């Protein structure tokens, strides 16, 4: 009965079209198909990171992502340091999809012995067809804790004199992406990083940046990625800090994604690569690095 009802309502929807061609099975089929096509755009990026920064992608429900990020020293540090291989920074993270639109993660980065916890919410998904929407939008919020001792300045300023809150930094980021085609995706990601404590008295605690990132798919399993995080207001920020720029290459093999990276920053969390990058590309301060992502299925759907 319900199917007859559906056909009936289809006829109302499509008027004379289906009526005139009612003998043609293919036409009935096409009318039915248009009712149920799934128009959500998927796989805007291969991984939850473009390179250093987050992408709009999230872990689906019940999936656990174990990530290892590695950034070596600078390529211009000479043969003595094996062009940076001797001075690696490492970050481990476990990231999990609570629902299909809500993921969480914890990270430990050797850079300033930092711990980070984050939530990422997938707010809108790009859709085509009747109910089309041009953008995928996610929101990232993170809190990071520096556990490395502060540098010894004088006897009055030892580590015990700093409150715990001085070790914290906060991140709020809106990730906005559009998948132009199967091959090309672009993301704009305005971000605020708030440092509870900064080094200099007149240094701003808030850093705003407008992240730009994208990928160009080379084959179905490899892509070229780029990412640029220009800071919007640099007044008062020490001039040694620069904007992070990275290029890289994604290789996907089943449950793994390998991301090979060239970047001018050794930091891997937002607080480090957005506000504390010191490398200059034109001076050769380029770090080779990689991200490895391995996804495990924890909760079957």
């Amino acid at each position, binding site marked *: 009965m319900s199917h007859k009802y559906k056909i009936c309502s289809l006829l109302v929807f499509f008027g004379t079209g289906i009526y005139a061609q009612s003998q043609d*099975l293919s036409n009935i*089929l096409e009318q*039915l198909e248009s009712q149920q096509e799934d128009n959500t755009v998927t796989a805007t990026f291969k991984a939850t990171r473009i390179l250093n920064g987050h992408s709009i992608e999230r872990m689906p429900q*019940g999936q656990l992502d174990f990530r290892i990020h590695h950034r070596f020293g600078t390529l211009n540090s000479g043969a003595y340091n094996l062009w940076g291989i001797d001075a690696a920074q490492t970050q481990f993270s476990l990231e999990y999809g609570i629902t299909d639109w809500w993921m969480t993660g914890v990270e430990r980065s050797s850079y300033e012995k930092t711990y980070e916890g984050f939530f990422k919410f997938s707010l809108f998904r790009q859709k085509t067809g009747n109910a089309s929407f041009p953008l995928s939008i996610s929101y990232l919020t993170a809190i990071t804790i520096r556990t490395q001792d502060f540098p010894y300045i004088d006897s009055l300023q030892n580590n015990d004199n700093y409150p715990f809150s001085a070790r914290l930094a906060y991140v709020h980021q809106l990730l906005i992406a559009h998948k132009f085609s199967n091959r090309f995706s672009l993301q704009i990601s305005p971000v605020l990083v708030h440092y509870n404590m900064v080094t200099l008295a007149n240094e701003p605690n808030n850093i705003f940046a407008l992240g730009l990132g994208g990928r160009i798919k080379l084959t*179905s*399993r490899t892509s070229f990625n780029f990412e640029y995080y220009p800071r919007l207001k640099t007044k008062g920020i020490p001039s040694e800090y620069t904007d992070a720029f990275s290029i890289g290459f994604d290789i996907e093999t*089943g*449950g793994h994604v390998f991301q090979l990276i060239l970047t001018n920053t050794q930091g891997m969390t937002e607080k480090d690569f957005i506000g504390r990058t010191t490398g200059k590309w034109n001076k050769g301060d380029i770090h080779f690095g990689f991200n490895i992502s391995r996804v495990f299925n924890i909760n079957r*759907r």
Partner: protein
Amino acid sequence: MLTMPAISLGAQKLITTEGNISFFSSTPFEDIKAENKKVIAVFDPQTGEVAVSCIMKLFHFERALMEEHFNENYVESDKFPKATFKGKIVNPEVLSNKTEQETEVEGTMTIHGVSQLFRTKIRITPSVGQVIVKAEFEISPTDYNIQIPQIVRTKIAEKILVKVNMVLK
């Protein structure tokens, strides 16, 4: 006026939008299973003609990542959103027997944009106002130009077992 064509159509064609097609790939390394519960089929009991369409993105896997890879890397669902079968029952006279029986369908199977002549046995149970169709057959991804890279070749079977189960009304 609205119900008239529905009655005439209902009397001639049997349809479903909730047909079930699942497929299985089994190797010593990994078992892969996916199911689509929204397969569309239209059947003309007068002529034995049948048309089936399944939207690839509606195949759901146990692992979300497998689903993404299936759509992105193997069947390329953005380029080829659906698989179809258009054909007919080779001996439509079996439809007058209102019992479960075996027959065959023959027609054109299109997957991943590649069309192949296709013939398989089916089990069919005609009754008043409905017909139950069941089938089991194998598909080779290579026949439909679906590339499986060397690195995962041990994890994906050369022949994929497909099971069809539909009630058309």
